[in-house]
C-alpha cells in the first residue's frame, strides 16, 4: 500500500510532461481521446488514493483504538498519521474545486441557453447582430440541439470560402462533442491540479481537431489556414473592455500545423499514453486491496 498509493501522483506528473509531445505527433482526434481518457483515469485514481490514505485514520477512531487496547493488540500503521490528515485536507480542497467546476459549467450552460432564445429550433446557425468579431459552438443539451453562433462582424470580415471554413470548424466541435472532452478534463484537473497543464493541451487539441475537419470539409488546407489568420486578426482589433488576452500562441501554432501535413494516427504513441492512465488505476486497485486487508486485521 505504501508505494501503490503514491504511484498515481507520480504518474500524473509523467502524463502532464508527455502530453504536449503527444499533441504534436499524433492526429488531434486520437490524441484528444487518449489524453482525456488517461486524465480522467488518473484523476479518479489520485482521488481514490487520497480517500484510502484518509481511511487509514480509522485506526485512530476511538472505538477501534479502545478495542485494540483491551485486546492488547498493537495497531499496524501503514502511513504516518500526519499524511492521513493531509489527505483529508486535500480531499476537502478537491471537493471544493469540483463544486466550482460544476458551477462554472452550469453558468455557461445558462448563458448559452439565453443566447439561443428567439431563434427557431431547427436552424444550425445563430447570428448575433454584434460589432464584436466572435464565433463559437454552443453544445447540444438534452433539450436542444447544438448550434453555431457567429457575430455579423465576423461574417462580414470573411470571404465565402473562409466562412465555410468557420462553419465547418464549429460544426466539427458539435459533431464530435468536443465540449464533453473539455468538460471531462476540466473536472479531472479540478480533482487533480497536477493535471492543469494537460487541460490546456486538450483545449488546444480540440481546436486542432476541428481545424483538420474543416480543412477536410472544404478540401483545402491553405484556405483553412488563411481563414484562421484572418479571423484572428479581425478578432484582435477592437477588444472593448475584454481582459482575456491569453496569448498562448495557439492560433499561430494551429496555422503552422495546417501548413504542414496532418499528423498520423500513431497508436505506437497513443497506446503508452493510455497505459499511463491505466497504471494509476491499477495502483489504486492494489492499494484498495491492501487497505481491505488492513481493515480486516483491525476490525476482526
Amino acid at each position, binding site marked *: 500500500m505504501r508505494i501503490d498509493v503514491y504511484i498515481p501522483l507520480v504518474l500524473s506528473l509523467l502524463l502532464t510532461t508527455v502530453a504536449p509531445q503527444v499533441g504534436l505527433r499524433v492526429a488531434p482526434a486520437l490524441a484528444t481521446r487518449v489524453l482525456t481518457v488517461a486524465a480522467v483515469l488518473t484523476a479518479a485514481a489520485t482521488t481514490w488514493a487520497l480517500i484510502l490514505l484518509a481511511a487509514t485514520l480509522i485506526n485512530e477512531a476511538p472505538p477501534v483504538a479502545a478495542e485494540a487496547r483491551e485486546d492488547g493488540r498493537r495497531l499496524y500503521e501503514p502511513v504516518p498519521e500526519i499524511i492521513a490528515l493531509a489527505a483529508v485536507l486535500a480531499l476537502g480542497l478537491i471537493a471544493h474545486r469540483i463544486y466550482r467546476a460544476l458551477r462554472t459549467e452550469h453558468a*455557461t450552460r445558462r448563458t448559452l441557453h439565453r*443566447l439561443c*432564445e428567439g431563434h427557431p429550433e431547427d436552424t444550425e446557425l445563430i447570428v448575433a447582430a*454584434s460589432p*464584436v468579431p466572435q464565433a463559437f459552438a454552443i453544445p447540444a443539451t438534452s433539450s436542444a440541439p447544438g448550434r453555431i453562433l457567429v457575430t455579423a462582424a465576423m*461574417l462580414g470580415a470573411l470571404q465565402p470560402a473562409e466562412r465555410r471554413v468557420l462553419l465547418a470548424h464549429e460544426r466539427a466541435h458539435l459533431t464530435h462533442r468536443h465540449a464533453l472532452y473539455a468538460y471531462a478534463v476540466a473536472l479531472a484537473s479540478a480533482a487533480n491540479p497536477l493535471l492543469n497543464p494537460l487541460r490546456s493541451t486538450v483545449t488546444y487539441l480540440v481546436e486542432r481537431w476541428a481545424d483538420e475537419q474543416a480543412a477536410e470539409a472544404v478540401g483545402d488546407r491553405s484556405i483553412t489556414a488563411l481563414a*484562421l489568420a*484572418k479571423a484572428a486578426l479581425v478578432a484582435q482589433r477592437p477588444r472593448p473592455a*475584454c481582459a482575456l488576452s*491569453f496569448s498562448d500562441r495557439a492560433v499561430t501554432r494551429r496555422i503552422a500545423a495546417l501548413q504542414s501535413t496532418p499528423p498520423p494516427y500513431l497508436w505506437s504513441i497513443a497506446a503508452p499514453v493510455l497505459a499511463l492512465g491505466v497504471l494509476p488505476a491499477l495502483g489504486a486497485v492494489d492499494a484498495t486491496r491492501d487497505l481491505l486487508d488492513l481493515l480486516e486485521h483491525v476490525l476482526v
Partner: protein
Amino acid sequence: MTGTSPHGRADRRSAGELESEVLAALWATEQALTPAEIQAEIGGGLAYNTVHTILRRLYDKGLVLRDVAGRRGTYRPAKNAAELTAEAMHQALDRGPDPIAALQQFVTGLSPEEERALRDLLGGSGP
C-alpha cells in the same frame, strides 16, 4: 436537386449546412441580395433552385425578409432575434470572461509579433 461543382462538393453539403451558408452570406453584406447573387456568392456549383428553396425555408422561419429597400425579389436577414442575442452576448462578455472564455472559440488573442507574422502570411490581402 443540388448541382455538382467542378470539385464535386456541393452535393456533400446537407440542407441544414446550406441553410447556414445562405444565412451567413446574407449577414456578411450590407445589401439585400437576389437569389442569383447569393448563388454567385456561395459558389460550389449550387443550383439556383436549391438557393430558392433554402431562401423560402429561411423566410418561413422568419430569419430573412423579402422585397426590402424597394428592390423586388431581394432578401435581407431579419434582425430582431440577432439583436437580442447580441445583447445577451455583450452582457455575458461584460460580466466577466468566465462563461464565454470557457467555450471553444474560433480564435483567441494574439501577441504583437504573432500579429505581424499573420499579416505577412496574408501578404497584404488581409483586413
